[in-house]
C-alpha cells in the first residue's frame, strides 16, 4: 500500500502543481495586502477638513467630537481653503452651516454638508468613507445627549436625531449631489463586479479551448494535415483566432445575461438613475467598450494560441491553461477592488500590460470620461494583437509546431 501512496503522491505533486499552488498563495497574499490597506483606513482616524460657519453651541460640540475622532486637516471658515487641504490627503470636507445650532434649538434637524472626495469606484475605494459616517453618528449622539440632559424642549424625534447629512460626491471631474459613496458604489456594482467576472470567465473558457485545441491538433496529428493544405499559414492563425473569438463572444453574452440576473437578485434595486448623475454612456462609448472587448479577446486568444504551441498533447495543454487563468484573475481582482487611478504605479503598469484588463476597466473609465485610458488601451491591444499574430505566423511557418521547442534525438519520429 505504501508503494501505491508513494506513486500517487509522485503523480499528483508535479512541479506544475506545486507552482500552481505557490502562485495561488502569492495571489491571495497580494489581494490580502490590497484589501488590508483600506481595512486599516477604517480603524484609523479619517483625514477631513471642517468649515464652521456657525457660531452657536452645538457646532462647538460637533467640532470637539471631530477633533477627538478625526485628523483635522483644516478648521476655519474658508470653504476653498478647506477643500484645497482635503484634496492634498483628505477624504471629505464637512461644512457646518451658519444655522446649525439655531435650527436645532428651533426644533428642526440641522444638516452637516459632507463633500466627499472619492478617488475611485472600486469596492475598496469607498471604504474610508465609513469612518466619516461614524463620526457624524458620534456628533449626533453627543448633541442628542446635550439636548436631553439640558432639558431643551424640542420635538423628541429631533432630540434623538438632531443632525442630518447633506452629501455630495466629488469623483474625478464629476460632481454628484445627493449620493453617498456607498450608494454610488452600489450603483456601479455592475461595472465593478459583473464585467470583470464575466470577462475573466470568458477569457478562461475561450483561452483554454484554444490551448486545448492546439494540444489536440498535435496529439491527433491533424495539425500536420492542416499545415500541408494549400492555405497560407497566416490564414490558419487568423482563422483559428477568429473562430475562437466568435465562440468567446457568444460565451460572454450568455455569461453576462446569467450573471446579471444573479447580481440583480442579490442587490436591492436603486432608485438613483445613472443618467441623472451624468454617468450614462453614449453610443460612442458603447462602441469603444465593444471594441475593447473584441480586441482584448483577440489579443488574449492570440496569447493563448502562442502558449498552445508549447503543448505537446491534450494532457500537457491542460497544464498550460494555468498561466492564462492567473492572467485573467489578477486584473479581475484589481479592477474589482480598486480604480486604475488609485492603484500604485507598479500595479497600474501590470494592469495595463495584461490584455484582459482593458475591457474590465473600460465602462467605468468611460463613465468618468477617462478616454485616455480606454483609447490608449485599445491602441495597446491592437499593437499587442498584431505583434502576437506575427509571432504566431512565424511559428506556424517554422518547424517548431511539429518538432517542439527542444530538438528530437536521432531515432525519434520527427
Amino acid at each position, binding site marked *: 500500500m505504501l508503494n501505491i501512496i508513494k506513486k500517487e503522491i509522485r503523480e499528483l505533486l508535479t512541479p506544475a502543481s506545486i507552482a500552481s499552488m505557490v502562485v495561488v498563495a502569492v495571489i491571495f497574499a497580494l489581494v490580502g495586502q490590497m484589501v488590508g490597506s483600506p481595512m486599516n483606513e477604517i480603524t484609523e482616524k479619517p483625514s477631513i477638513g471642517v468649515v464652521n460657519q456657525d457660531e452657536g453651541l452645538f457646532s462647538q460640540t460637533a467640532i470637539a467630537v471631530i477633533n477627538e475622532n478625526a485628523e483635522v486637516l483644516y478648521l476655519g471658515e474658508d470653504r476653498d481653503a478647506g477643500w484645497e487641504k482635503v484634496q492634498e490627503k483628505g477624504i471629505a470636507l464637512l461644512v457646518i452651516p451658519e444655522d446649525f445650532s439655531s435650527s436645532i434649538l428651533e426644533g428642526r434637524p440641522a444638516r452637516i454638508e459632507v463633500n466627499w472626495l472619492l478617488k475611485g469606484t472600486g469596492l475598496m475605494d469607498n471604504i474610508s468613507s465609513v469612518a466619516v459616517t461614524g463620526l457624524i453618528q458620534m456628533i449626533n449622539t453627543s448633541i442628542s445627549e446635550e439636548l436631553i440632559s439640558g432639558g431643551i424642549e424640542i420635538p423628541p424625534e429631533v432630540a434623538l436625531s438632531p443632525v442630518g447629512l447633506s452629501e455630495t460626491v466629488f469623483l474625478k471631474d464629476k460632481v454628484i449631489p445627493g449620493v453617498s459613496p456607498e450608494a454610488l458604489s452600489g450603483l456601479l456594482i455592475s461595472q465593478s463586479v459583473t464585467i470583470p467576472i464575466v470577462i475573466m470567465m470568458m477569457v478562461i473558457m475561450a483561452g483554454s479551448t484554444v490551448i486545448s485545441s492546439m494540444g489536440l491538433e498535435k496529439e*491527433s*496529428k*491533424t495539425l*500536420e*494535415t492542416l499545415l500541408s493544405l494549400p*492555405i497560407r499559414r497566416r490564414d490558419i492563425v487568423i482563422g483559428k483566432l477568429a473562430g475562437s473569438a466568435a465562440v468567446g463572444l457568444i460565451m460572454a453574452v450568455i455569461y453576462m445575461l446569467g450573471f446579471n440576473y444573479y447580481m440583480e437578485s442579490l442587490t436591492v434595486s436603486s432608485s438613483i438613475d445613472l443618467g441623472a448623475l451624468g454617468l450614462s454612456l453614449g453610443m460612442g462609448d458603447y462602441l469603444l467598450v465593444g471594441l475593447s472587448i473584441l480586441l482584448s479577446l483577440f489579443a488574449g486568444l492570440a496569447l493563448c494560441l502562442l502558449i498552445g504551441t508549447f503543448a505537446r498533447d491534450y494532457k500537457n495543454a491542460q497544464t498550460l491553461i494555468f498561466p492564462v487563468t492567473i492572467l485573467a484573475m489578477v486584473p479581475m481582482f484589481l479592477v474589482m477592488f480598486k480604480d486604475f487611478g488609485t492603484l500604485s504605479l507598479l500595479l497600474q503598469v501590470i494592469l495595463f500590460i495584461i490584455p484582459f484588463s482593458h475591457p474590465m476597466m473600460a465602462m467605468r473609465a468611460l463613465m468618468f470620461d477617462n478616454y485616455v485610458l480606454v483609447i490608449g488601451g485599445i491602441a495597446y491591444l491592437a499593437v499587442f494583437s498584431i505583434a502576437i499574430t506575427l509571432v504566431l505566423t512565424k511559428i506556424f511557418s517554422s518547424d517548431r509546431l511539429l518538432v517542439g521547442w527542444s*530538438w528530437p534525438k*536521432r531515432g525519434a519520429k520527427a
Partner: protein
Amino acid sequence: MNALEVKNLVKDYGNTKAVKGISFDIAEGEIFGLIGPNGAGKTTTLRLVATLLEITSGSIKVFGIDAVKDPAGVRKIISYLPEEAGAYKNLKGRQYLEFIANFFGDGKEKEEILRRGVQIAGLGQRLDDKIERYSKGMLRRLVVARALMVEPRLAILDEPTAGLDVLHAQEIRRIIKDFVRSGRAVLLSSHNMLEVEFLCDRVALISEGMIVERGTPQGLKERYKRPNLEEVFVEVVG
C-alpha cells in the same frame, strides 16, 4: 519533367543530423518507396517534401516548383498523409471530407472531389457517423480518401495501409496503383515489404539519414540474390 527532385538534402535538429545529404528523384507516373528502420530519417524526408519542415541545405523541387522558394505553390499540388493521421473527432466523416474539399475547389469541382472521397473511403452509411465512433481502420480509410480525393500531382504517403485489414489494405493499394496512371506520382514510406514490393516501381533504402541502396524491387532482389525485399532490407540495413 520529374515529379520530384531531391538533391543533397540535409536536415539538422540542433546537433542531431536527421537527414545527411540524400538525393533521389521520382518520374511522373512512378511510385517511389522510401524504406528503412525506425528513426532512419524517412518521416523527416517526407515532411521536408511536404514543406512541413525547413530544409537545412539542399533542394527539393516538385514538378519544377522549388519547395524553399515557393512552399505554398508546392502545397497546391501535393497531398501528405502522415503516419497515424487523425481527423477532427467531432465532425462526421462526410463533413471532414467536405472541410478538406473546400480548400481545393468550390461548386461542381468540390462536389467531384467529395464524390471521389466518398468512393475511396468506402465507408457507406458510416460516413455520416461522427469520427469519434470510427475504428482505427475506418479512420485510416477516411484519411487515405482525404489524401487521394484531391488528385494531387504528388501524393506523399507515410504508411498508407497501417491499421487496415487485409481486404481494405488491398483496396487502398489498388487505388494507389490506379492513381499514378494519369501522370501523377507517389512517394511512400512503409514497413510492409510485401506492400513496397507490390506497389513501388523503385525503392531507396535509408539508414541513419543516408540512402544506402536504391533500385527496382526486382533489381535489388537480383543484386543481393534474395527471394524478397525483406531479406534484402535485412542484409543492407541490418
